[in-house]
């Protein structure tokens, strides 16, 4: 039985208890959220114990990091270090997006070393094997696709991005819209190429029930991949994107009915004035299923700083209802992220998520800010360090101990000190 079917049967699981404790919420709230599909708890039944996290309405916004090899850079030791760095930086989930070298070995390593839920995109490995063995991504078979999902599910992957909401209706809209950057999702591109070449409907859409059966057996959470996410601000909220979202909504209902936990993936490049509308549309079309968003990137013009464009978009999206933020690193659009990029990406996404939690009135978030504000007024450096989002960075800059309200200019007989006494904080 999946978390969803248990929740529906009124059963409270250990995973729900763990989530409730971490969020300081009533476990019944979690169970009800899982039962209604507004909360997911990604955890494959084959996976060892780890820090379960709940994703969805009423919960702290979670942050996802991406690691993985590519054909240009396939050192799995480097990727292991990135995983460790991402976790130390406080990510809540991680996706292994490997496309180079020993992909199976890389995934086993990630599953063994991660203390958070692990996600994958099975179509990557499937497409790459087709290219390597048969010369082209269009040579994939239906069987290959489902076999890849089955294999990865059996290994213990907790959530899978699968581009089921891509069909010929979407491609028709895509052609009609005249997009600036067409398809920017790699999985979406593999499938689009496959469909157009073979003139066949997307098997992951057409045989959706078959997919659900595999996912259900392992309680893999389905993350409906967004094949058609906007790759430039000009493409945001166009007909193709909305067609994909409408279909995603239909598939959410079918997954939930089948007892499969499901969330929806989304944008991409979105100008700020489109963010709220995007969130509302997703929540409405997808029955309140958790929204897992990349970024969103508030502008196209800042390669080298896309962790910042994404922090802007992610914060607004989070405040407007997004539940799970996929990080974007400074290397986005330029290359494969370094270890430092991974850390910067997680921290930027966490700042955005926390800012959104505050805007949503999350009590734990407000308590944290209040504590650090008081530590600042009391000039308590040790507390400021301990409470900061990145204690190591603050400690390196501040040292420790405590100070007074005098500034560098006047020494002890200082006007600022007089003011501090007046307010009772000297």
């Amino acid at each position, binding site marked *: 039985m999946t978390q969803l079917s248990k929740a529906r049967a009124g059963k409270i699981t250990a995973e729900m208890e763990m989530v409730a404790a971490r969020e300081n919420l009533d476990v019944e709230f979690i169970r009800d959220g899982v039962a209604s599909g507004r909360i997911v708890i990604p955890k494959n039944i084959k996976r060892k114990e780890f820090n379960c996290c709940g994703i969805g309405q009423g919960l702290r916004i979670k942050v996802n990091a991406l690691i993985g090899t*590519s054909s*240009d*850079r396939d050192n799995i030791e480097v990727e292991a270090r990135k995983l460790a760095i991402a976790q130390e930086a406080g990510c809540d989930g991680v996706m292994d997006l490997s*496309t180079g070298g020993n992909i199976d070995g890389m995934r086993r390593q990630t599953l063994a070393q991660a203390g958070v839920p692990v996600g994958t995109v099975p179509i990557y490995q499937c497409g790459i094997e087709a290219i390597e063995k048969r010369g082209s991504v*269009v040579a994939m078979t239906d069987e290959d696709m489902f076999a890849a999902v089955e294999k990865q599910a059996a290994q213990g992957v907790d959530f899978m991005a699968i581009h089921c909401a891509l069909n010929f209706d979407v491609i028709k809209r*895509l052609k009609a819209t005249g997009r600036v950057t*067409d398809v*920017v*999702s*790699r999985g979406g*591109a*593999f499938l689009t*190429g496959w469909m157009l070449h073979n003139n066949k409907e997307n098997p992951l859409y057409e045989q959706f029930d078959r997919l659900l059966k595999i996912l259900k057996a392992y309680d893999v959470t389905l993350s409906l991949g967004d094949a058609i996410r906007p790759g430039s*601000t*000009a493409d945001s909220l166009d007909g193709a994107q909305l067609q994909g979202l409408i279909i995603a909504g239909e598939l959410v209902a079918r997954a939930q009915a089948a007892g499969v936990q499901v969330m929806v993936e989304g944008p991409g490049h979105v*100008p*700020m*004035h489109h963010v709220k509308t995007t969130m509302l549309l997703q929540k409405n079309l997808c029955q309140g299923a958790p929204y897992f968003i990349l970024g969103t990137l*508030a502008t*196209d013009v800042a390669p*080298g700083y896309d*962790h*910042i*464009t994404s922090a802007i978009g992610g914060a*607004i999206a989070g*405040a407007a209802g997004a539940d799970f933020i996929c990080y974007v690193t400074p290397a986005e*659009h*330029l*290359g*494969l992220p*370094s270890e430092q990029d991974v850390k910067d990406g997680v*921290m*930027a996404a966490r*700042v955005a998520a*926390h*800012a*959104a939690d*505050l*805007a949503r009135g999350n009590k734990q978030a407000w308590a944290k800010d*209040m504590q*650090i*504000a*008081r530590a600042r*007024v009391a000039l308590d450096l040790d507390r400021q360090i301990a409470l900061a989002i*990145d204690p190591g*960075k603050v400690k390196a*800059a501040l040292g420790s101990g405590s100070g007074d*309200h005098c500034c*560098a*200019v*006047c020494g002890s*007989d200082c*006007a*600022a000190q*007089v*003011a*501090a006494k*007046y*307010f009772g*904080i000297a």
Partner: protein
Amino acid sequence: MTLLNSAQKGKTTPEMEQVAAKEGVAPEFIRQGVAEGTIVIPRNINRSNIIPMGIGTGLRTKVSASVGMYGRDAEIGTEIRKVKAALEAGTDSIMDLSVSGDIDSMRRETLATAPTPVGTLPLYQAIAEAADKHGSSVNMTVEDLFEVIERQATDGVDFLALHCGTTMSVVERAKREGRIDPLVSYGGSHLIGWMIYNQKENPLYEHYDRVLEIARRHGATISLADGMRPGCLADSLDGAQVEELVILGELVRRAREAGVQVMVKGPGHVPLNQIEATVRLQKSLCKGAPYFVFGPVVTDIAAGYDHISAAIGGALAAWTGAEFICYVTAAEHIGLPDVDQVREGVVAARIAAHAADLAKGMPGAAEWDLQLSRARKELDWEKQIALAIDPKRAGLLRKERTGDSSSACAMCGKYCAMEVVSRYLGSAKQGC
């Protein structure tokens, strides 16, 4: 005659024409904005090397970088390197916030180096000189303070930040309502201490006409600073902040009547869901005067990452109506920024400003995005990097994270999604 006087009389000055040309709007639009006070063009009549820049409604969002000497180790040379780094990163303005050392020379050097408007906070120097002259900043005289304001205006400072609205009534309210962090602003804290020690009203409020007279004579713009900017989220939009804003609204009116250009300085630490309300209040109370916001940072916990926190807040503030963003660096709350943090702070603020201009539909903003995205689709790396907000950094990262080997990028390597799909969609070669 100040620019405001000229505009009110229907006269379009060369400064207004230059701003209009840069912004791609009609000179009459600028003249009208200046006349109504919704646009300011900070430009001291004693300045010779300045390229006029407009701030306000209907114009591209501008950013400002702060430098200045603080503490024993500060050097003019280091600070001027920061000025140059900020200019290279594309700042629209510089503030010299020196609180110690040879403040006069630092200011003159900044004015000579920057072709942008330069702002200062004269109270800092008055405090430092009072400490030297009288042993403590509490012994500063009103004459000391005005002498410094006059000196800085004479040097050619384009906008003077002055805490004219931090009155005794506002200070008492802050105490009464139990503000968590009443001492956020360096100038504000000292001014409040002075007021309490001497049991006197804020001289910048009491002698506001004298402030205006100096500003008018030199054509300087007043930037009404806030002593009660929120220093933590919990203090945002409290009684003290709002009362000070009400007073600033009155002072805006008096400045305009005196023919002095004026803008209003604001937040601080503001939760995301209070940014729009903050900007609307300022616009309403201050009759459309340009809003110059510090950040705002959207959480208290992001020390080390406050340039990111501020980019979030700044983007939202500018989108909802703030026109001028003061950068926040990664060193905020934990030290003084180095040259690299200055550059990074400027770029973060520029990203926020551009994201806001894009959301507001400012002419040209979407065009920039479109050009870069088209270059991306064509895998035209040279063009992508040339169009990037910081071409140097984009070029460096591409080199380090990909190398020159790949036509795509190392993220996808030979499985570049766009190359795959474009083959079948029959569209041009693309990139992500």
